């Protein structure tokens, strides 16, 4: 049976500055490591003739060149990331709306032109209702329909 590994690892307990610093240093080290391989890379590229292709395609005097497209990609990323970071930093944890009250039902009814408490009660509690509107779209009549028993269910299609 394998022993339990007594490892203590809580990277999330570091501050963001500590994390950023360690990642930057790590990334820098990788960059130096890659730099050491440059002579090998140069030899391979020279063999493949990529330098010639680079001069003719990437540095060609055509605005639809590969380079421009990569620039577009970079700009898109900078704009999206920048704007979203601004939004995140500016609005994260912002709870200005905490005080918004639940709207009472009478208030909702008033907005729709329904002030009669009896009609409001029908709307809230009845299970089947017919609603009638005038040509301007205002609610003018509400009829409650009786609850159906299973035996009362119509078998044929019908239009209300």
């Amino acid at each position, binding site marked *: 049976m394998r022993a339990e590994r007594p490892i203590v690892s809580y990277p999330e307990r570091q501050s963001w500055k500590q994390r950023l610093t360690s990642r930057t240093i790590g990334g820098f080290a990788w960059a130096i490591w890659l730099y050491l391989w440059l002579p090998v890379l140069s030899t391979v590229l020279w063999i493949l003739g990529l330098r010639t292709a680079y001069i003719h395609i990437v540095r060609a005097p055509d605005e639809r060149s590969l380079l421009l497209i990569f620039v577009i990609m970079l700009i898109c990323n900078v704009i*999206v990331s920048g*704007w979203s970071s601004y939004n995140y930093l500016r609005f994260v944890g912002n709870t200005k*709306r905490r005080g918004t009250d639940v709207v009472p039902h009478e208030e909702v009814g008033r907005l*729709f032109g329904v002030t009669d408490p009896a009609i409001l009660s029908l709307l809230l509690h009845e299970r089947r209702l*017919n609603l009638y509107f005038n040509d301007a779209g205002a*609610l003018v009549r509400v009829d409650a329909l009786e609850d159906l028993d299973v035996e009362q*269910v119509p078998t044929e299609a*019908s239009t209300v």
Partner: protein
Amino acid sequence: MLKFFLNFAFYYPLAMAWFWIFGAINYYLRRERKGPTRTHPPELPYWPKATLVVPCHNEGDNVRETVAYLAEQDYPDFEIIAINDGSRDNTGSVLDELTTIYPKLRVLHFPKNQGKAMGLRMAALASNSEFLICIDGDALLDRYATRWLMWQLVTWPRVGAVTGNPRIRNRSSLLGRLQVGEFASIIGLIKRAQRTSGRVFTVSGVIAGFRRSALHRIGYWSTDMVTEDIDVSWRLQIDHWDIRYEPNALCWILMPETLRGLWKQRLRWAQGGAEVSRRYFKNLLVWRSRRMWPVMVEYISSAIWSYVMLVVLVFGLIGTIVPLPTWLSMPGPFPTWYGAMLGATCIVQFSISMLIDRRYEEQIGRLFFWIIWYPLAFWLLGMLTTVVGVPKAFSKKIGTRAVWESPDRGIR
């Protein structure tokens, strides 16, 4: 000048694709990757009642299944309000029958077709809850969706609405499969990207949750807009409410599988976008509305792109028949690096979206083969519907009521 427009026509779709890709990656890494899985939604601090709202117009064939799915929601306290909006089929009698099976179901009958917005308004009036979860009459709500939407609404008081993740059910034809790809690869990425930028263009009308007190402040849904979902989204955000995207709130929907059906649907969307931009443009010209600026800029530039691209295509076609002067000549058909990068961008976009999306649907990668058509179809259809929809929106008489038209629901 001509060169500028040509460059705009060619580079705009490329740039937008990269905006969406980077935005979606940003969203995924920050909000999605380490989150709980769909079947294990987070616990809510408290469990207020929810009202599940289903406006129906001629949904007799679908509404049984729709209500059955609603009744199975994994949420402790909810009621269902179905609106039978002047249906000419048996929707009314089916709903009446369903009240005997599902005690939580209540039905509002409108003798005449009043439109979806009116149905939603009356449901808000009849609701016993502060929270409304609205779906369409042919949609099937995933068992955990209500909990996910309510979690967003209950936990964050700034949130006025939450839009869910519509998934296409009908995949019989190429058009159906293309739309599966569209919802995963384009709409999913756009929603995520817009969410990271702070504001969304619209909630999905087919699955969205709302806070009633937020709706009350803005006067609920407008009855005179062809796309009530875009309209309510803009007004909520102009009133500084947040709209969230909740990819775990799945809702299975039916989409058109005929070109005619698809055209009518997309034309309505294009007209709706233009109507909303026309009505609220002035409200956005203040610093306090700055978070809506990217949404507005994206909409206006898309509309301009549609017209520019149309002109480019027309001159390109003419150029193949009649020789044009040099200053009017279009680039040849040989794909330069632009073509290669566009192809690469498509593949990267699909791959990223599939990688993100496989959390929500198994074997989504099988559609990879089909959606290679999608970018062409998306931009072409978007271009044509915008070209037709914008003048329709600007010539429409303000205040005209929008009522139901039964959509194409694919091969059944």
